[in-house]
């Protein structure tokens, strides 16, 4: 089947005794009864609209062209942003972190390499006339190599002024630094993603210093400074089987003490370290249910609840930097499409290196760029019939391997599908349905475990 036609992005998901029609390429979502869904399916199959009233309007929209399906980038490399890894080192010893034992954890990016990376990227921005440049800092903990940030920020600003474009800095950080450094971050960065797992007992169980000391006081001090600053602040809270029941409590605590724009809850990614610490991924149903409960609390306080693969406002073919032509420079000069550890890609049979920085320039391998672009949802057959495919896009290429069998939903699929469904209902103004839905396990299972969501496929909708 040719899945590129927008008609093959029209989905039908059972929600109680209703059908959620979801057509992301037509910007349409509607709750209809089963008879209406069958009539709409027939209308699509014959290409004629024999319906009247509201149903006729829906049929007209669905029979329309819709937006083109998202497509992988083609042509010359066009990075969405420049990613820098100032160091893989860190001042914490998070009990689930797989970066701790990385061979390269002691390396710090040479300042000249950082300058050259910025120059290369800003040359590209100038050449292509882009109006906005973005530099993202990843780690380890990027502030453990603060010199790299201090140089990069100023060099990039100078180049952006010369190019006449705006400039956006983003960093993922653990918040473990001095008050002075924290104020610098608040003053100079535009988006800060602060890892803070929750109240003291959770934070200290998950994210202690290397000597076992509590990181809670300094991280919460940073969270307060950043809350009062101009940068857009997001918290990232890692959830385990042990803390999944406390997500609403964590959300409440965030709301009472800080002012982030949003909170991203992510389940712990199993690593040798997390397993040794007996920090296991949460049950996906419990994670989804508690995420939604936490979302209601956050949203009441004007904060956004984020689950990265369930963003219904995006239409994408790749979940992560790998499909966006992002160029990520490591301390040793390796240029790659992913900020995770090379050993982790290799363990999944992937090579995400794009080239190297040498002699002040990026030397890209065209085949490697093509290979990175091929990591997209079009090449994940088990996602073809899933209503989340243009949002989740199959998830992380390294940490999520969708099953080959269509309709086989693993742990990550289950929570993504449940949270995405709720996010669609919320966008429709029908969160009331989600309230009832998450309290009814049987209804959730029926919706989430559908083998195919395609309206046109199968004997009957849902």
């Amino acid at each position, binding site marked *: 089947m040719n899945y590129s036609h927008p008609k093959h992005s029209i989905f039908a998901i059972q929600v109680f005794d209703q059908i959620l029609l979801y057509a992301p390429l037509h910007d349409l979502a509607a709750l209809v009864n089963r008879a209406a869904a069958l009539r709409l399916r027939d209308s699509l199959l014959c290409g004629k609209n024999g319906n009247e009233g509201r149903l006729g309007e829906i049929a007209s929209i669905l029979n329309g062209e819709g937006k083109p399906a998202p497509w992988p980038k083609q042509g010359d490399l066009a990075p969405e942003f420049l990613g820098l890894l100032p160091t893989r080192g860190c001042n914490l010893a998070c009990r689930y972190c797989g970066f701790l034992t990385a061979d390269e954890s002691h390396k710090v990016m040479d*300042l*000249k390499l950082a*300058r050259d990376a910025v120059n290369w990227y800003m040359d590209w921005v100038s050449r292509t006339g882009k109006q906005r440049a973005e530099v993202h800092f990843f780690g380890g903990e990027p502030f453990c190599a*603060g*010199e790299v940030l*201090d*140089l990069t920020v*100023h*060099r990039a*600003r*100078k180049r*952006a*002024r010369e190019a006449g474009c705006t*400039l956006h800095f983003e960093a993922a950080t653990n918040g473990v630094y*001095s008050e*002075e*450094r924290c104020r*610098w971050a608040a*003053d*100079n960065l535009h988006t800060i993603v602060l890892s803070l797992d929750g109240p003291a007992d959770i934070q200290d169980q998950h994210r202690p210093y290397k000597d076992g000391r509590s990181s809670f006081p300094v991280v919460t001090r940073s969270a307060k400074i950043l809350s009062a600053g101009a940068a857009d602040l997001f918290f990232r809270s890692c959830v385990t089987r042990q803390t999944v029941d406390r997500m609403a409590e964590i959300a409440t605590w965030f709301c009472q003490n800080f002012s982030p724009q949003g909170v991203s809850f992510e389940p712990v990614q199993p690593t040798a370290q997390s397993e040794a610490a007996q920090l296991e991924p949460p049950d996906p149903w419990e994670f989804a249910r508690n995420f939604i409960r936490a979302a209601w609390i956050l949203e009441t306080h004007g904060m956004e609840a984020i689950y990265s693969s369930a963003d219904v406002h995006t239409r994408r073919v790749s979940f992560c930097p790998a499909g966006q032509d992002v160029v990520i420079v490591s301390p040793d000069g390796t240029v790659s499409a992913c900020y995770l550890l090379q050993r982790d890609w290799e363990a999944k049979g992937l090579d995400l290196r794009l080239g190297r920085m040498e002699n002040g320039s990026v030397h890209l391998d065209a085949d490697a760029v093509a290979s990175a672009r091929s990591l997209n949802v079009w090449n994940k057959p088990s996602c073809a019939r899933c209503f989340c495919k243009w949002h989740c896009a199959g998830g992380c290429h390294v940490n999520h391997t969708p099953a080959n069998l269509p309709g086989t939903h693993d742990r990550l699929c289950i929570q993504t599908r449940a949270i995405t469904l709720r996010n669609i209902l919320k966008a429709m103004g029908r969160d009331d349905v989600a309230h009832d839905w998450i309290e009814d396990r049987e209804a959730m299972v029926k919706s989430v475990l559908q083998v195919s969501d395609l309206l046109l496929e199968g004997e009957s909708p849902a």
Partner: protein
Amino acid sequence: MNGPLVYQCSPAIVWAQDADRVLLIDRDTGQSWALRDAEAMLWDWLRGGYTRDKMVQMLSLACSPSVEDAERTLDGVLENWREAGIIHVSESHVLSEGSAFGKAGF
């Protein structure tokens, strides 16, 4: 034995980062300054407690002058700030553990 030079922000100076510039105001006189480019960089790095050698290296990398040009720029900016009363310079006989650049008055 002489210690390192310590640059201290004058108590009357208040400052704020505003996008890519730094705004300074002398609370006593009302005089103000907008620091851009190399001046904004150097203010930021003094705030971060960098040594003279490191600032020279970073200025050279950020603005692409020679090391000698970067040294001249650094010395010129610091002298201008000293003359304007924005900073005080003293000689320390004890190595400062933290930033040598106080945020007095902020």
